[in-house]
């Protein structure tokens, strides 16, 4: 079965600094990978997704992620963080399980932004 690990529960950065959130997955075939963001009191919103092709994918709000098959990773990056980026970030892997599409989510990383 597939699994997703987000090793960092909390990340604190200063506004304007760069950001990298880690995500490692376990899946036997080529995965479909997603990053979602959850602002306080809101549902999850898709930031970006990887299906195939170019391993560096661009998303909304200036985020990007790089798929590295050799490391089973899909880390999320942003060159300069804004205070409004403070939120919970979830990595997910999409895979067929028993004939149904059941995504698996990591536990999330909480991003704290200092002014």
């Amino acid at each position, binding site marked *: 079965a597939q699994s997703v690990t987000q090793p960092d529960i909390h990340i604190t950065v200063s506004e304007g600094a760069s950001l990298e959130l880690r995500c490692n997955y376990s899946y036997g075939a080529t995965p479909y990978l*997603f990053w979602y963001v959850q602002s306080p009191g809101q549902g*999850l919103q898709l930031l970006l997704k990887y299906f195939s092709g170019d391993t560096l994918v661009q998303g909304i709000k200036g985020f990007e992620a790089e798929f590295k098959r050799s490391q089973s990773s899909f880390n999320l990056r942003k060159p300069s963080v804004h205070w409004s980026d403070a939120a919970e970030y979830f990595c997910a892997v999409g895979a067929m399980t028993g004939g149904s*599409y059941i995504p698996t989510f990591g536990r999330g990383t909480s991003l704290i932004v200092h002014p």
Partner: protein
Amino acid sequence: NAGVTQTPKFRILKIGQSMTLQCTQDMNHNYMYWYRQDPGMGLKLIYYSVGAGITDKGEVPNGYNVSRSTTEDFPLRLELAAPSQTSVYFCASSYGEYSNQPQHFGDGTRLSIL
């Protein structure tokens, strides 16, 4: 664009009471899901549905029931509320035939059992 709509947004229940959390989507998605989110635990899948009339258990189905009579609606029912069911509940939908399709989430229902 309504997307996925959940009602109510907040609810307080007494132990042993029952209630139904409503979820409606207007994107003609065939797959729908119910998750619960507890602090630091990410999302736990309760039930899912791959189409009208078809439902299946997820990771944490005990204490819940679902039905899917239409493509649009996927209500979640708590029959005998327990304090352990205090959580934030999210409904989601997607074009499930293609595992590369993302999920669309509602804004959640915050439920407290006292």
